[in-house]
């Protein structure tokens, strides 16, 4: 059997690889069988020991495919050995009998440790650690103390043979055993309730199996403390019940393998459906709802399916599995480390989803580039706005200021001089005042000061008042919005009203500003002639960059004879 298994040099270690123990355990089993037959032990009893030992060994071998289960595998193999070693009690040598007596119940403690440290060999909790220590105390410790006081003539360790003391030791052993069994049951139930996903799939069968052995073990311990432990039939039953433990280990592995088959069935589905729910489907196949998919961009950054930047976690509670297609990394699956127990499952998903992920990666890359373009357009618009604000301020504080002073000075001069000169000065004054008005309008068009000071509603109402036809403003904007949103909405209204005045021959117009959740809706309607189009050189077309930087939509409805409606929808989420 062992000769057919290829062992790589780095795993040539008994603790790492129970395969090396196979010849030994088979030999030991045969020797025990011969010993038992030689001393007249019942065949059923011998068969029970062999069945349990070989089942434990087999479970240990099946678990070879789980790299993280190394310690559990070693414990299972050790339990098989110790179980058979206990049968040295059937030997005629007193020394061997004593050794067998000492090891009599140790296999139970080893199995308790397998369960309470499953699957990675670390105790689940402090309570689990205490229960494991308790199991060793009850089995190995109890037998050692028992050996010191035993009245049996075969016991070479007996130093103070007292029947009553030996019975008391047995009783304490029994009670400690019951305590450990109950603690085990409690820990099992608690663990079953918290496990999820891949970890639950792989571990639940063992937890349930171990839980089922507890009542049997407690009954056995109670019966032994009442009637003494020389009951071969009960020992046979006990070993039969313990078979559940290796069965549970193997069942967990096979239930994961079933999952793997399901994974390959999903290949077709993965390739057929749209990409939006790829993450959900992968999460379902892998049984890990926390799964994240990170797509790798050419520059080494990672993004999610929407193209938003993503960092791979450094968290020890998360594991990253890289997916490569033709040697090139396309994505990283970020998942629960319990999935490492099912490398074959992860591998099959990785193999089948590779191409779909590759496609998704390209799509995510395009989305990331779009987001980048939008962000850069936003920065350009913001920079232009800052510049407009600066120019507006300079116009006011510089040229406007001087013109105003000049006009006041001219006015003063006109009031103090003779009529002829006064007339000339008055005309100069008119010119200056005209220049001031034009300059003010120019500055306002460059950047609306009121918008900055008082917000969108006030600025739009001022626009409406300055428009030379009746404009009704209906508004429900509420709080101030971000500068780019307010500016975009303001310029839409401003350009639309300019068009109404210039082209629509309208008698009145209505402006509506509605904010619903994360969307600002701007509507400008008139009762004019309609037939307007967003010509490439119109003011509204000039707002394209500004609106697209915000992912906003602009719709112009203008059937001939039915007026014009300009609608802008501007996302304004924080």
């Amino acid at each position, binding site marked *: 059997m062992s000769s057919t298994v290829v062992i790589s040099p780095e795993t040539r270690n008994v603790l790492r690889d129970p395969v090396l123990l196979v010849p030994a355990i088979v030999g030991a089993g045969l020797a025990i069988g011969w010993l038992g037959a030689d001393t007249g032990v019942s065949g059923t009893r011998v068969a029970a020991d062999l069945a349990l030992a070989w089942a434990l060994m087999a479970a240990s071998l099946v678990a070879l495919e789980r790299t993280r289960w190394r310690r559990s595998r070693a414990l299972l193999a050790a339990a098989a050995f110790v179980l058979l070693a206990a049968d040295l009690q059937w030997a005629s040598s007193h020394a061997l009998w004593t050794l067998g007596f000492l090891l009599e119940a140790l296999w139970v403690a080893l199995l308790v440790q397998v369960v309470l440290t499953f699957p990675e060999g670390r105790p689940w909790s402090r309570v689990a650690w205490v229960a494991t220590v308790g199991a060793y105390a009850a089995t190995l410790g109890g037998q050692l103390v028992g050996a010191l006081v035993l009245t049996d003539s075969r016991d070479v360790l007996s130093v103070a043979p007292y029947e009553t003391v030996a019975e008391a030791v047995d009783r304490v052993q029994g009670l400690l055993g019951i305590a450990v069994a109950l603690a085990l049951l409690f820990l099992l139930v608690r663990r079953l309730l918290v496990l999820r996903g891949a970890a639950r799939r792989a571990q639940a069968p063992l937890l349930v199996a171990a839980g089922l052995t507890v009542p049997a073990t407690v009954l056995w311990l109670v019966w032994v403390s009442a009637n003494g432990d020389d009951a071969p039939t009960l020992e046979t039953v006990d070993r039969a019940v313990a078979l559940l433990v290796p069965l549970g280990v193997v069942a967990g592995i096979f239930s994961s393998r079933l999952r793997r088959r399901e994974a390959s069935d999903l290949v077709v589905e993965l390739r057929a459906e749209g990409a939006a729910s790829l993450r959900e489907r992968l999460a379902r196949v892998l049984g890990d709802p926390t799964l994240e998919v990170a797509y790798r961009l050419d520059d080494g950054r990672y993004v999610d399916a929407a193209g938003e930047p993503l960092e791979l976690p450094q968290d020890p509670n998360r594991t990253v599995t890289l997916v490569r297609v033709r040697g090139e990394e396309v994505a990283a699956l970020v998942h629960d480390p319990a999935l490492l127990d099912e490398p074959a499952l992860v591998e099959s998903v990785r193999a089948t989803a590779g191409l779909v992920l590759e496609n998704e990666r390209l799509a995510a890359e395009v989305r990331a580039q779009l987001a980048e373009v939008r962000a850069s357009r936003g920065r350009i618009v913001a920079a232009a706005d800052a510049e407009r604000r600066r120019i507006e301020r300079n116009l*006011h*504080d510089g040229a*406007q*200021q*001087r*013109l*105003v*002073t000049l*006009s*006041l*000075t001219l*006015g*003063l001069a006109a*009031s103090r001089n003779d009529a002829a000169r006064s007339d000339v000065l008055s005309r100069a004054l008119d010119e200056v*005042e005209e220049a*001031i008005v034009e300059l*003010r309008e120019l500055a*306002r068009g460059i950047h609306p*000061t*009121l918008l900055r*000071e*008082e917000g969108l509603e*006030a600025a739009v109402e*001022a626009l409406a*008042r300055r428009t030379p036809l009746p404009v009704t403003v209906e508004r429900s904007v509420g709080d101030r919005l971000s500068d780019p949103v307010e500016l975009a909405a303001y310029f839409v209204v401003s350009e639309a009203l300019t068009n109404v005045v210039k082209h629509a021959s309208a008698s009145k117009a209505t402006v509506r500003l509605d904010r619903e959740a994360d969307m600002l809706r701007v509507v400008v309607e008139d009762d004019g002639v309609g037939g307007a189009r967003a010509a490439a050189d119109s003011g509204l077309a000039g707002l394209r960059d500004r609106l697209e930087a915000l992912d906003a939509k602009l719709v112009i409805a203008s059937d001939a004879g039915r007026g014009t409606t300009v609608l802008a929808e501007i996302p304004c989420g924080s």
Partner: protein
Amino acid sequence: MAKRVLIVDDHEPFRAVARELLEDAGYVVSGEAADAAGALAAVAVEAPDAVLLDVQLPDRDGFSVATALAVPGGPAVVLISSREAEDYGRRVEASGARGFIPKSRLSAAAFTALVE
């Protein structure tokens, strides 16, 4: 009766023409200041009856100066600016000033209408 007026503006030529306008109408210009700090100091020393106050000052804006001066027994404050009142929305009203005159329409009559 001759009222005492403080003129606050950072543009010296403007202060000069404003002074002439007001003095022509019989006001006494008690002093001039070029910024908010100077304005508050001058009010404390000269106790003028009225202040002609520019909104855009180099250190603080005129609204906050107007608010600081809006105490019982304080001077009547008239805000001026090269911008229109409309550009400031409700801030003129909220400042506690008597009123607002765009600089291009500044006249003694407009000033008198607000401070009397």
